[in-house]
């Protein structure tokens, strides 16, 4: 797919001006009949994901992944549901330094999703932002934001994360700024390089 996009970009001026236009995603697009139902179910999965994170529900979090699911996050990588549940067990509220326990809340939007022709796997990219009030005054702030590159599989009629790569613009090791639009690289094995991978001499956060 990357080769297709590079070819398209190489003819950028002509392609943009042409009536046929530039393909928005894969060629041909994978919006087959039934796309809406798959998309609704995967949006539901993403909603459950955010709620599990925000309410420290480690088991609920792990249940969204396949048994051999992979999670790449700001501090490393987890292989398999058991490891993912253990990782999620580390989600704890900030110290009780304010008038009430602090909260954080994740919003996931801008989902670009493609479902494979057989309807059993899908890939998506989406953006996320975390609001929180983790300060003594419980003042609302934006904590982090980033995007994710996700692979989904459908098992016995239900969608799961097969893998989830989380990028975080607050962490150089997980930032994707300066990279290509990740939509152009869906269905490739390699995720978008992080900013740190592209700038290995950097020594900040």
């Amino acid at each position: 797919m990357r080769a297709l996009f590079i070819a398209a970009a190489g003819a950028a001026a002509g392609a943009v001006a042409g009536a046929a236009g530039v393909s928005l995603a894969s060629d041909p697009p994978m919006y087959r009949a039934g796309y809406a139902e798959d998309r609704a179910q995967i949006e539901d999965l993403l909603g459950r994901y955010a709620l599990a994170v925000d309410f420290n529900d480690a088991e609920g979090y792990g249940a969204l992944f396949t048994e051999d699911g992979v999670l790449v996050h700001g501090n490393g990588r987890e292989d398999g549901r058991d490891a993912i549940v253990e990782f999620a067990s580390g989600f704890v509220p900030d110290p009780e330094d304010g008038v009430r326990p602090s909260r954080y809340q994740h919003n996931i939007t801008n989902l670009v999703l493609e479902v494979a022709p057989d309807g059993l796997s899908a890939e998506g990219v989406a953006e996320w932002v975390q609001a929180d009030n983790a300060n003594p005054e419980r003042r609302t702030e934006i904590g982090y934001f980033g995007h994710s590159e996700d692979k989904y599989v459908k098992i016995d009629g239900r969608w799961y994360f097969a893998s989830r790569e989380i990028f975080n613009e607050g962490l150089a090791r997980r930032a994707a700024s300066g990279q290509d639009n990740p939509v152009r690289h869906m269905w490739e094995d390699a995720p978008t390089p992080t900013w740190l991978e592209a700038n290995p001499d950097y020594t900040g956060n």
Partner: protein
Amino acid sequence: MRMLTLAAVSVALAASLAAPAVARKPTAQEKADIETLAGHYIFAIDWRDPEAYAATFAPDGVLNYGGGQAVGREEIATVIRSLRERELANAEDGEETRGGGYNQHFVSNMVIDVAEDGNSATELAYWFAISGEDPAISSFGHYKDELVKIDGEWFYASRRTYNEQAEGRGTFHFFNPVTNPERYGAHVED
């Protein structure tokens, strides 16, 4: 498509802002497709991808935004290309890295009406943007869109961006744009 819209609405002067005269709610498939289009639009703007951005518009699409109006994919792509070049030029040594103007937009609260024939639609949606290494909400507003379906794929026939932080791009507080289309856009110069 514009001709189709005009024919459907029949009130020519209001056509560019009014919902289709005979409109219905979107089907699940239409809503899913239009949400996907919104995702493509946002990834393209956030990664400063001019061609992918322009490809979300119809070939004769119109973008009306804080910097003016762009007509057609070439002009629309130029808006993003210029933004990208401006940001790269402004990046100072050591700053062309993680800052450099990087921000992210979020779209939600889509309200969609589809013309009875299923070939055009209007849409309202909220957006907000956050930016910076110490991220904060930098701006928010909404989109007012006309969409057209060409060969089974949805595109923006026109997108008008409202930004509550920008002079002349805000809206009246007390008129819900969903239910008061005739009051719509009073603060935006055509």
